[in-house]
């Protein structure tokens, strides 16, 4: 349904052209949940913002191809993109505290989206908003539509944001760390909700997170990003049972084990991810990698056989 080929996003800055996304290709099939993992700055959000056409920075350059249901989105005019956004592709953002306009009720904001894409009356849109709020398990939805964002808790706001995203039955839902700003119990409820809605609405979901635990909960396929490139992709079970890339292995090692003896110290990855301005030549992970060897000064290609990794150890 969504086919991204060799996507490159770069920003013109005073220090020259900065490549935020460097040749990312992936696809999303109907009804599946694709997990995108990576540290902050790995380009996971930017690549999905590019899909949404939400990179508004005039200094951004977007190259490559993004095909949605056969339609090319790169270079699509603003009006057509707008009609797609919110109706076909919807997005949930990280921080529910700031994602809603503070001066309007949540019912108004949901109805606004419905009426932007469908010619229906204000009354009908309001009824639909009530339905949606009930669907995301907000108690007393008929009354909740009159609430302002500041009157709701973080979890309730995120539910309202999800209800809004689902209001036009999108085929693709992009969730950008929707649970990161919430506490753990609310996180679990939101994950359940996303899974339930994905089944009911038959939407495909791209779930961005930096939390391997969340990926294990929700994703059917996973792609791991590092410094603007995909380093590994595969099904959830492949990735967790037999990770190929040293970065994925290191990420999994850094999760505290639930069974067995308690480790003295949690394993961590030495160093920090490179900034976009000084990404090392060749494999970007090499400086932090325990398995690096001479070949790593070149850029490894991603294999293409279902469970893929961009590493010379895997694919010499």
């Amino acid at each position, binding site marked *: 349904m969504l086919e991204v080929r060799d996507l490159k996003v770069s920003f013109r800055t005073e220090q020259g052209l900065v490549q935020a996304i460097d040749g990312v290709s992936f696809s999303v099939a109907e009804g599946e949940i694709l997990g995108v993992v990576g540290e902050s700055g790995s380009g996971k959000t930017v690549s999905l913002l590019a899909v949404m056409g939400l990179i508004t920075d005039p200094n951004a350059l977007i190259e490559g191809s993004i095909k949605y249901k056969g339609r090319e989105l790169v270079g699509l005019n603003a009006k057509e993109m707008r009609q797609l956004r919110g*109706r076909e592709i919807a997005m949930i953002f990280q921080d529910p505290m700031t994602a809603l*306009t503070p001066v309007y009720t949540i019912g108004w904001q949901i109805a606004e989206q419905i009426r932007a894409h469908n010619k229906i009356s204000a009354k009908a849109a309001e009824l639909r908003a009530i339905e949606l709020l009930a669907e995301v398990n907000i108690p007393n939805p008929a009354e909740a539509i009159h609430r302002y964002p500041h009157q709701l808790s973080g979890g309730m706001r995120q539910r309202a944001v999800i209800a809004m995203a689902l209001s036009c039955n999108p085929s693709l839902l992009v969730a950008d760390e929707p649970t990161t700003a919430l506490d753990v119990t609310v996180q679990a409820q939101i994950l359940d909700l996303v899974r339930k809605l994905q089944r009911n609405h038959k939407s495909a979901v791209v779930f961005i997170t930096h939390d391997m635990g969340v990926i294990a909960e929700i994703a059917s396929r996973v792609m791991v990003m590092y410094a603007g490139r995909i380093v590994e992709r595969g099904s959830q079970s492949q990735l967790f049972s037999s990770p190929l890339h040293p970065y994925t292995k290191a990420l999994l090692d850094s999760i505290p084990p639930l069974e067995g003896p308690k480790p003295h110290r949690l394993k961590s990855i030495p160093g920090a991810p490179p900034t976009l301005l000084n990404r090392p030549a060749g494999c970007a992970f090499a400086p932090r990698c325990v398995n690096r060897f001479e070949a790593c000064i070149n850029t490894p290609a991603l294999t293409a056989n279902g469970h893929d990794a961009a590493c010379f150890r895997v694919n010499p």
Partner: protein
Amino acid sequence: MFLAIAQRLGQMLFVMLGISITVFLIFFATPGADPSARIAGRNASPEVLEAVRKSFGFDQPFYVQYLIMMKKIFISGDLTSFVNRGWKVVPAILDAIPVTLSLVIGAAVLWVIFAIIIGTVAAATRGSWLDKALMIMGLIGISMPVYWLGEVMNLITQSRFKDTWMFSWVPPLGYKNFSDSPKAWFLTLIIPWITLAILYIGLYARVLRANLIEAMQEDYVRTARAKGLSETRILLRHALRTSLISFITLFGLDFGALVGGAALLTEVVFDLHGVGKLTYEALLTLDLPVIMATVLYASIFVVLANALVDVIYIFLDPRVRTV
């Protein structure tokens, strides 16, 4: 919501009580400034001084003096000037109020409308030549002193181009009562309105543009974009709506101050006998009752304008509604 409004208006009364006491103490209880000596004039004999003191109640404790003063201003309204004996202060202020209100409200309407239009257009076309041109014009507007601009306006409309088709409609300087002739009232005030508004249009347009550009970076604007709304709708319904909150704050302060006498320069240049001019003349002659009354009047308007702004807040920003 109504509770919040009622509470706000209640607070206003306390603020005004505090202001009236402070102003009274500054002018009448400052050590070394004996008001009776001012009234009696130079070289007055001790007997005359004593008589003045008695007739104005200056031989009584301060709180009695304060109460007499408040009674004369607010209840009996028979406060008289020290300098022009027998001249009633309260009617003089009541005559000046409509002049100042006409000037300031008209200018405020102009500046709010034009500042919103210019600020929004500049923010929407950020970085373009139109944005730059509008902001440079705004800067020029802010930089022109109002007394100079007023004189230039008078030079053009009252003297150099007075007899051309452009400005033959401009009536001579001075104020015409609205009740006498709405048309004359309107025509005499057009040039003063524009003169006073130009500074504020420049200032408010620049402030609004900055606020809008900041608001357009907010997360909720990104959400609005993700909803598939048009850029115009995002700018007007989401960004402008939230930016108006700080716009209104600024407006309350400026509006209150202008009605309270800060429009003095405009009033002098266009020969409008408003509150600013009255205060100015009273200060020149140190006419204490007039100063007292005009300062109190000014404070009432500043406080009223701020209360009004708070009430508007309650409508604009739902977060303020919960007390």
